[in-house]
Each structure stands twice: as C-alpha cells, then as structure tokens.
C-alpha cells in the first residue's frame, strides 16, 4: 500500500475502531509526507519538529514512525547508520532486515568482521526514515519523462 489516500483511509478506520494515538500520529506523518514530497530523509527529531510535537510525546512518535515502516503501510523505509565507538564516523549502513536479524540472533558482525554485542550495536546505530511516497513519485516522473 503506497498510495497516501489509501493509507490515510486505513489509518482513519484504525483510529475509529481502536482509539490508538499511534495510528492518529501515523496519519499526521502521512499527511506531512504528502505535503512535503521534497522531504526525503527524516529522523525522529526531524519528525518531531515537522509535526511541532513535544519530546515528552516521543514514545508515540517513535512507535508511529516504525508502524509506517511495516505492513500494510510501507510509507517509510528505515535504515541505520552504524558509527564507530566514539560516535564520530559512519562505518556502514544497515537495512532494517539486517538489523532485525541481528536482534533476533543477538549477534552482529560488521563489514570488517568485528563481532558487536547487541547493546553496543544499539548504542552505535542511528535510524533514519526514508519517505517512500517521494520515491514512487520519482519513478512516475522518470517513466513519464522517458515516455515523452
């Protein structure tokens, strides 16, 4: 499901039936992405600022952002920057599948073969979210440009 209208419709139904604040904030994020297609990458702090929310409400915002990564919405993709131990340089990037496998197996080996404990990994990886609706638009624009 990558059409903003369909996603919003489902979210509205979920808010109606469950009253969950997580789905309500998901709706706000989707509206923001729809009106700011130029916005490609977002952190939780960036989303907080964009939606003009307090950091006291980050619990709901975090759950909402990750909810939009999952099925059936898939409005966002999450990726992770892995920093060195001093949190100075980005060593590599992880996709979400790699992160979830590491959590499931309680073990992560980086590109250089270093075994990183999960607590250490969590302290050194910084997630950011990619606006997938923008990607869809880019694909459509490229397709229509080629057609011309």
């Amino acid at each position, binding site marked *: 499901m990558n059409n903003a209208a369909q996603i919003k419709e489902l979210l509205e139904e979920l808010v109606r039936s469950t009253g969950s604040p997580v789905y309500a904030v998901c709706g706000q994020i989707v509206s923001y992405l729809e009106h700011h297609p130029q916005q490609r990458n977002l952190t939780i702090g960036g989303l907080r600022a964009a939606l003009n929310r307090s950091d006291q409400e*980050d619990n709901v915002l975090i759950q909402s952002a990750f909810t939009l990564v999952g099925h059936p919405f898939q409005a966002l993709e999450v990726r992770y920057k892995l*920093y060195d131990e001093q949190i100075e340089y980005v060593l590599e990037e992880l996709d979400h599948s790699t992160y*979830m496998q590491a959590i499931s197996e309680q073990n992560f080996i980086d590109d250089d073969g270093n075994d990183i404990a999960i607590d250490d990994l969590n302290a050194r990886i910084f997630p950011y979210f990619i606006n997938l609706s923008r990607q869809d638009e880019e694909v459509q624009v490229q397709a229509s440009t080629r057609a011309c």
Partner: protein
Amino acid sequence: MSELLNALIPAGNSMKDLLSISSELGDMLNRRTPASYDVFVKQIDKDLNNIISVTESGRQHHLEKGEDAITEHIIVQLKRDYSSVHHDAQHGGHCDIYIETRGSDGSLYKWIMEAKLWQGFEYVYGGLDKQLLGSYAVGGVNNCKGGMIFYSKLASGASYAMKEWHQGLGVKGITINNIREDGLRFATAHKLNGGTGSDFYVNHYCVDLYHAPTEAKIEKAQAKADSKD
C-alpha cells in the same frame, strides 16, 4: 568547541535511546516487521495471552455477549498492535481471526484462529476439525500456524472446559504438547488433508467469562420479565 561537538554528534537518536524512550518498541518491531515467522507467532501468543488476561478481568461486561461479539472485542484489542487483523476474513472460507504481516525481509506471514463459545467438546471440535483444519489452514513455512480459542461461561470454570477439551482431543488421537503448568494452554500438531497433507500447528487458548454476580443479575432480570408475561 561546542560547535565542533555538535558537528560530531550524529543527527537523531540511537536505537538505544529510542528503546529506552519507548519500552514497547522491541515488541512492536516483532509485530510489524518480524525477523522470522516464529518471531511473529511468538509475539501473537504473548499479545493474545495479555488480551485474554484483560478480557477476563472485565468478564462482567462479556457474560451476556455471543460468540461473534466476544471475538470482535478481542479483534479490537489485536488491532491496536496488528494493523492487518480481520474478522471473518476470506481465507479458504470465513475464518474468525486472520492476521498477516510482512517480515523484515518482505516475506508474507499469515496466522489464523477459530473462535468458539464453549458448548461442549463436539461443538468446539467442529471448529477445529472442520473449520480451522478442514477449510482455512494451509501449509507452508510462513502459513503453518494458528490458534483455537474458546470462551467459557461455565460456573465450573474454564479449567473444567479446558480439561474436557484436552481429554477429548486425546480420545481423538491428537497428541497434546507444551501444556502450561495450569493446564489452560497447550499446543497440537496436525497433518492437513485428512492426515496426508502439510503440517499445521495450533496453540489452544480459553477465556474464562463466568462472573457469578452478573449471572445472578441476568437471572433476576429474566425472572422479572417472565413474571410479567
């Protein structure tokens, strides 16, 4: 110096930060983007047990409800955590509870459950044998697990019904596995297509909805209505 430090600190929060701000995030990731089918099913089991516990705490509100209304109550609770949960979903027939999600690698995972009001062994067994296993269940590594839940309004308690259920399945030749120490949860393994097909695994749940004061109130109201007739 502070400008230099700011330049060095990456934008955003680490996962450690996010996990400490949102204690539910770990479970949430296992629901929304599980690393494997087993992770997905284990998370459903955990969530369902919590929902059953909450439902039993408010059993006075459910004693008068029918099978579908109780199932609907459970589905609303599940929907808070699983966006793709459906009642009466078309899945080889109309199964009572259907949940699907995509794993973190994009694989589609499915889980189904049949719900019955406890009206004796044969009635619930029809739900397991004819509906869940005979109609809705399919095999395959990402579809081969489901649940059977029944609602007990017995004054003798859900443990009595669960014992009947357990013993009756034994008589049918079904092996019981992973019995919880209180006897209220267990698992069974089946072969589909009348015993020659794919493997399918079922977790069994019961919900105890009997509430003596509410039943007394219902009986009193009924007696009053009868005396007016």
